[in-house]
């Protein structure tokens, strides 16, 4: 039965990868940018399914949320500002780029031949540090999801870098498109006809649920797939959905432009601040074992999480909690800021059309 299951999973891999190739070719072939964006969304969804087959639940979750969800919305916002089709290019102009693409692709395929087998226990990724993480997470860090432990604790510095990258990306978009002050100039919503009532009712029912789910993903990240990056995107998507259905003016009343961009900075600051606190208390940067001084740690009741006899690493526990909170704040408000930037620009574009 297990052999059959392995074969089925291999067959599923082949089918999903072929689908990915087909969608990639379709994206390259189509001239309509709207079609290309929607196909990219499908691509992300299929690759999320493929990652799920590969047992990489956290990555699959991120791919589904970011690739199929948020980036599709942002790209659709971008396409509102440009024309909907690619320009026709003479074939002679395409020779050099095509050659370059073929060479790069060939090199990548050649390099992939040198990669270890999937799941090979003696591969460098699994043998040294990776194995150590798996073996020692329980006693050193605590969370049941090793991915969370590696991401937020062992590799906390890398994750701080990722958070800064997201913040910088949001800043870059905001510098090009504006932080969204134009979004405050959104025209007052015209009296909406009754034909949008289904959408509004569905959105009203869904937005609280989506927000709740974001927090579930955030706080459940210690135990299962999920974490702050996914939760941040889901939270941002709830805001964007509100903006799409009820109009920009209402959204900005709920989540002001200034608040969005300050919270994005606040998240990075919270993350780095945790690291600095660890240094102040005598540890290394982001070494959560030093997050609390011994006096503070003694004040934490032993039965805070139920069982008083179980040994807890309170520094690690709260360090991961705060760090993930910082990531949540940065990711969600960065995406909302980007959305405001595009939305503000599309108001300009609509005025220019008139």
């Amino acid at each position, binding site marked *: 039965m297990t052999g059959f299951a392995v074969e089925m999973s291999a067959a599923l891999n082949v089918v999903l990868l072929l689908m990915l190739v087909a969608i990639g070719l379709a994206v390259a072939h189509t001239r*309509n940018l709207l079609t290309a964006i929607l196909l990219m969304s499908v691509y992300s969804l299929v690759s999320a399914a493929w990652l799920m087959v590969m047992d990489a639940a956290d990555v699959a979750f991120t791919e589904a949320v970011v690739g199929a969800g948020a980036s599709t919305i942002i790209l659709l916002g971008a396409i509102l500002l440009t024309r909907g089709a690619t320009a026709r290019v003479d074939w002679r102009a395409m020779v050099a780029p095509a050659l370059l693409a073929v060479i790069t692709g060939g090199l990548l395929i050649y390099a992939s031949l040198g990669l270890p087998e999937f799941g090979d226990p003696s591969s460098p990724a699994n043998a040294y540090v990776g194995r150590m993480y798996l073996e020692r997470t329980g006693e050193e860090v605590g969370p049941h999801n090793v991915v969370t432990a590696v991401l937020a604790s062992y590799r906390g510095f890398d994750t701080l870098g990722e958070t800064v990258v997201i913040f910088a990306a949001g800043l870059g978009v905001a510098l090009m498109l504006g932080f969204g002050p134009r979004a405050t100039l959104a025209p007052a919503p015209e009296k909406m006809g009754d034909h*949008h009532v*289904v*959408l509004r009712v*569905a*959105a009203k029912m869904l937005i609280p649920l989506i927000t709740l789910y974001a927090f579930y993903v955030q706080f459940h990240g210690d135990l299962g797939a999920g974490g702050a990056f996914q939760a941040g995107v889901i939270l941002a998507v709830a805001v964007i959905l509100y903006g799409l259905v009820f109009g920009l003016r209402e959204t900005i009343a709920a989540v002001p432009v200034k608040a969005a961009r300050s919270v994005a900075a606040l998240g990075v600051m919270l993350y780095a601040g945790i690291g600095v606190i660890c240094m102040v208390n005598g540890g290394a940067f982001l070494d959560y074992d030093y997050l609390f001084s011994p006096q503070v740690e003694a004040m934490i009741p032993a039965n805070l999480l139920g069982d008083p006899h179980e040994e807890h690493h309170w520094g690690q526990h709260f360090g991961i909690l705060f760090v993930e909170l910082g990531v949540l704040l940065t990711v969600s408000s960065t995406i909302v800021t980007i959305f405001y930037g595009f939305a503000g620009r599309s108001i300009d574009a609509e005025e220019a059309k008139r």
Partner: protein
Amino acid sequence: MTEALHWIGGGLVVIGSLLTLFGAVGVLRFPDVYTRIHAASLTDTGGATLALLGLGLISGLTPETLKLAFIWAFVMLTTPAAANALANAAYGSGHKPRIGAFQIIPSDAPRETDPEDADRSSSQ
């Protein structure tokens, strides 16, 4: 008993998948936007319902069943709303139904005015 439930559940999953596949065929084969939306949304909700029901029978009464019920509620809420929004947008941008008694465009009228054809020719 569980064996029988597994078979019934598996059968329901297969039937649900087939229904979704028929929906995909319908999207490709049907003549205009509205019938295509109809094919996609109806088979999506139906197929998902059958598949989730089948998975629920396979998993038995566990927390997973509750999660499947949540997914079902989510699908039943989103897919029809999305189809409605899609049809609304199609109507707003001037797509006209093409078949049946609702045919507004006479069959011998020039097709250039139809935005769907304009989309199609620009995409190729």
